């Protein structure tokens, strides 16, 4: 019966994709997606209730497709991250841009971070810590062989061996086949969030004995050809178990420079450009092009170093942290600097992943007056150049950030801080390795990150980056301490999705609002620029879960 819900939702999402074509209707689509989120929550909560009704969501959408043959679509995507060509467990399946279209996951994550049954038709928790997955019968790999639980066990073991499973605590003996269509997965430690995490394409299912680079999955597209760093081509699978694709061939050209990607579109060489440079969007119409964007998937966050050694110890003072957080106008940042790619979301993650708990999020509002008053009252006096100092120490903060972060955003943060008397020095790093070295050495006051929400677990970021018992070594300088850890442990012990969402909102409030250890600058959309002939493109907020089945050419 809940397959019916899933089906209803799928077809309505299809409708949603139609309404999104006009940019004026974006708001209504987003509203709609929020409704979808609630639906998804209902669908996902009682995983065990999802009994099999048989039959896949039918390919009705072909009716929406304009008459004529299926087209071929070419897109300019970012740098090549197709499964690393290396042998064995080295290669992963989670990469961009097509892998989730070639390899299905057990559970799919929809555009609102809701769970949709995919290769697993239903699942349930077998206390204390085992998740039972009932596989969809009649699914075939691209070579015609049927999907069985042996393939799932193989894929999970492979992820365990390669380390991709470590976050979900999937170990070597975690997966066990009960019969040909039933698999038990028992994480190596308590993990009640597994279904929310298993949507991640790095845990997708490949044929027993194959490698990611072989491309042998059950997805709506089959790997056709791949030229490293140049392009990858996939073709439509005729007898896909779900809704088949509406284009016959999909080609992605790897172009790492965003401007070059847009030039390829402007010259007519490609139909779609993913992630064009921000600020180019408003000029697209002059070139006869359009654009579309997803909901929030990434968030621009500043992590403040609260345990740093001098000279990186200024932000151990909460006054300074709060003043810094108050100094920036998120509305201006989103509207005027990250125009067309961002929204001033107050949470340290997409609001939609929090479901109905999003309403509990407490926002920090820009206030120049409050920030300066706070600093004035606490002995931060402005010098001749307007920069404040206290006890003879100049308030000068080092900002580091992911090299992929838009420089203009950093410059805006810098100039906003300067307006309240805080100097921010941007340490421009060319690559992740140099950035990682600076961070590891603790040589920063503000660490700017752009984390993506690639699974449906809203607690992943607070746990990964701020729980002092987290496996991530980067928590040392930012972890708030024991009371926060206790809150995290409560969250981890919950298996009920609304409870997880509520607790996650509380964790975020502590970090962003109460302690000002995190500054939530903006929520970012994924954006695609395209020719007007491209229809049906609904961008997924998580690039790794982007499906291309509904896209068509007019």
């Amino acid at each position, binding site marked *: 019966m809940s397959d019916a819900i899933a089906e209803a939702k799928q077809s309505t999402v299809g409708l949603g994709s139609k309404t999104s074509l006009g940019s004026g209707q974006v708001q209504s689509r987003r509203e709609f997606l929020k409704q979808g989120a609630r639906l998804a929550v209902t669908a996902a909560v009682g995983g065990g209730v999802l009994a099999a009704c048989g039959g896949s969501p039918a390919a009705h959408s072909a009716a929406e497709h304009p008459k004529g043959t299926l087209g071929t679509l070419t897109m*300019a995507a970012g740098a*090549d991250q197709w499964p*690393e*060509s*290396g*042998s*064995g467990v*080295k290669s*992963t399946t*989670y990469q961009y841009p097509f892998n989730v279209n070639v390899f299905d996951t057990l559970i799919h994550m929809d555009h609102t971070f809701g769970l949709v049954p995919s290769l697993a038709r239903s699942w349930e928790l077998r206390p204390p810590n085992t998740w039972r997955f009932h596989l969809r019968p009649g699914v075939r790999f691209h070579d015609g062989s049927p999907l069985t639980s042996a393939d799932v066990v193989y894929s999970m073991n492979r992820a365990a061996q*390669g*380390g*991709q499973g*470590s*976050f979900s605590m999937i170990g070597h003996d975690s997966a066990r086949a009960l019969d040909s269509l039933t698999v038990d997965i028992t994480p190596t430690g308590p993990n009640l969030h597994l279904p929310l995490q298993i949507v*991640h394409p*790095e845990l997708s299912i490949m044929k027993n004995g194959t490698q990611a680079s072989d491309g042998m999955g059950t997805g709506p597209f089959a790997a056709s050809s791949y*030229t*490293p*760093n*140049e*392009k990858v081509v996939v073709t439509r699978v005729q007898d896909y178990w779900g809704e088949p694709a509406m284009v016959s061939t999909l080609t992605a*050209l*790897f*172009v*790492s*420079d965003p*401007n*070059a*990607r847009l*030039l*390829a579109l*402007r*010259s*007519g*060489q490609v139909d779609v450009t993913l992630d064009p440079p921000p600020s180019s969007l408003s000029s697209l119409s002059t*070139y006869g092009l359009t654009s579309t964007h997803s909901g929030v998937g990434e968030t621009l966050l500043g992590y403040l170093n609260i345990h740093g050694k001098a000279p990186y110890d200024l932000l151990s003072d909460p006054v300074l942290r709060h003043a810094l957080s108050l100094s920036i106008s998120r509305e201006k940042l989103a509207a005027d600097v990250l125009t067309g790619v961002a929204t001033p979301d107050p949470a340290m993650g997409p609001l939609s992943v929090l479901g109905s708990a999003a309403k509990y999020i407490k926002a920090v509002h820009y206030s120049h007056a409050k920030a300066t008053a706070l600093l004035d009252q606490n002995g931060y006096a402005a010098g001749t150049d307007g920069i404040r100092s206290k006890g003879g120490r100049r308030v000068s903060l080092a900002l580091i950030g992911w090299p992929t972060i838009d420089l203009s955003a950093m410059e805006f943060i810098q100039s906003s801080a300067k307006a309240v008397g805080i100097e921010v020095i941007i340490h421009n790093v*060319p*690559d*992740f*390795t*140099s*950035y*990682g*070295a*600076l961070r*590891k*050495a603790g040589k920063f006051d503000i660490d700017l990150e752009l984390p993506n929400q*690639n699974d449906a677990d809203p607690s992943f970021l607070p746990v*990964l*980056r701020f729980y002092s018992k987290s*496996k*991530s*070594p*980067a928590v040392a300088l930012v972890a708030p301490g024991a009371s926060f850890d206790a809150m995290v442990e409560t969250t981890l012990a919950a298996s009920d999705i609304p409870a997880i969402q509520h607790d996650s909102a509380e964790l975020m409030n502590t970090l962003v609002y109460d302690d000002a250890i995190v500054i939530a600058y903006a929520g970012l959309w994924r954006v695609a620029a395209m020719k007007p002939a491209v229809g049906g493109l609904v961008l997924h907020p998580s690039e790794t879960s982007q499906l291309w089945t509904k896209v068509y050419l007019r």
Partner: protein
Amino acid sequence: MWRYALRRVLLFVPSLFLLSLATYGLTTLAPGNPVETYLFQRLGQEPTAAQVVQQERKWGLDAPFLIRYEHWLGGVVTGNLGTSFFTGEPVVTEIGHRLPTTLRLALPAAALALLGGVALGSVAALWRDSPLDHLVRVMSLTGASFPSFWVGLLLIEVFAVRLRVLPAVGEAGLASMFLPVLTLALGPMAVLSRVMRASLLEVLGEDFVRTARAKGLSTPAVVIRHALPNALAVVVTLAGSITGGLMLGTVIVEEIFAWPGVGQLTITAIFDRDYPLIQGLILLAGTVFLVVNLAVDLAYPLLDPRVRLGRAVG
């Protein structure tokens, strides 16, 4: 002559050795651990300390610098350049995949620079101090005065976007080669045209050319039969520096035009700190550069009749 060649080859080996040691040192000194970048990319999240240690051991990064260098050097001597950290492929394979792409860019660019440079230089020399000469001199300098990525982007804007006569990016047949090759060739062409002009003027003033003229040969015949080959000999000596310039140029041009060649590979390798790959690329660049220079030195006497004359007299 063979003794000279041998001496050059023997000197060439320590050069390469020095070069590889220097790069090895530099890549090691650079902060940032490739293991962490690698695991971050692969796991999609921060690796744990244990994962880092395990991976370091796997790559042999736990050994001291000199031991690693010795190990690497031992491999090189036996023709094994090691395995790329990030792709797990042998470095030789990795470079072998990319080299043809770069050559498809660099060789036509070199040819265009040579043809264009020789033609422009000859025109300028033959009509010395005419408006044409001035025009060629200024134009060639202008071509070399703008940053190549800037020129490349403007060329795309004009020819791919506005006029739509050529593709903007990627490698898709002959048409896609025009813009990157032109971008790459502009700088070397400027230098070549200047050298060609100067050397042709010099040769035209030489005794043997005057003699040929005195014997009654017409000017075009003298230029084509005598002056041009001699002037070209000088142009050949530029091969080394042109090669060096092209290596640098391809890095930028490949980035803009999305050509998956050695230049892109170099940037990726550097940003990832893929030590074996960086070492392999440096070795390749260094070898090409030194071999080209050596070849020029060895070929030069064969090309320049005056040097052969010197041999007869000396």
